[in-house]
């Protein structure tokens, strides 16, 4: 069984300040982990993914996430927020169920960036 918890439904930051979006996961084995972003009225786009190659994963648009097994966390960070980062972010855990890829989405975190 697998699950994912996004700890904040809304996060508000000022432009130019750091971003932290928190995600905790639960999985029976070593998981694959993803962050997707959804801008208003758009489909989801992959930001980054963890596949056990390196614990610090760099993604698009300056985002990165660190896999911490001891804390079962995969928090998303960015050093300096930009107005264009305002969107909804989904943490996703991936695995296998019944021989097929199965992913489980978190409930999402809406990021607001204040000018």
């Amino acid at each position, binding site marked *: 069984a697998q699950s994912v918890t996004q700890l904040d439904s809304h996060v508000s930051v000022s432009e130019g300040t750091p971003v932290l979006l928190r995600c905790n996961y639960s999985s029976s084995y070593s998981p694959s982990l993803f962050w997707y972003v959804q801008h208003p009225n758009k489909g989801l786009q992959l930001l980054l*993914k963890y596949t056990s190659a390196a614990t610090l994963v760099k993604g698009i648009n300056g985002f990165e996430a660190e896999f911490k097994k001891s804390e079962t966390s995969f928090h998303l960070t960015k050093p300096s927020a930009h107005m264009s980062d305002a969107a909804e972010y*989904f943490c996703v855990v*991936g695995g296998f169920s019944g021989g097929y890829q*199965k992913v489980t*989405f978190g409930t*999402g975190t809406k990021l607001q960036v204040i000018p």
Partner: protein
Amino acid sequence: DVKVTQSSRYLVKRTGEKVFLECVQDMDHENMFWYRQDPGLGLRLIYFSYDVKMKEKGDIPEGYSVSREKKERFSLILESASTNQTSMYLCASSYGTSDTDTQYFGPGTRLTVL
């Protein structure tokens, strides 16, 4: 670039109507998925398909069916639409059966059932 297209961005239907949502991908992906997205609930998997004419139930299949007659096309069918099926529907595709495969999403169809 992978492209996943959905037949409609917005759709309004009446209770009891049969509704077809179409999804097409152009990357020869094996897997295709249908999700619904509701505020505060994230994305929930309705059905997925790992091959032509094959389908598997997801977490919330009740009230839905699917069809995959060609590799590039995956249809979601609401046999008799109800108001609780008002939602955003997202289609996705992925290459194979690795748990690290990226899913590529279409823009979504916002369905309103009156």
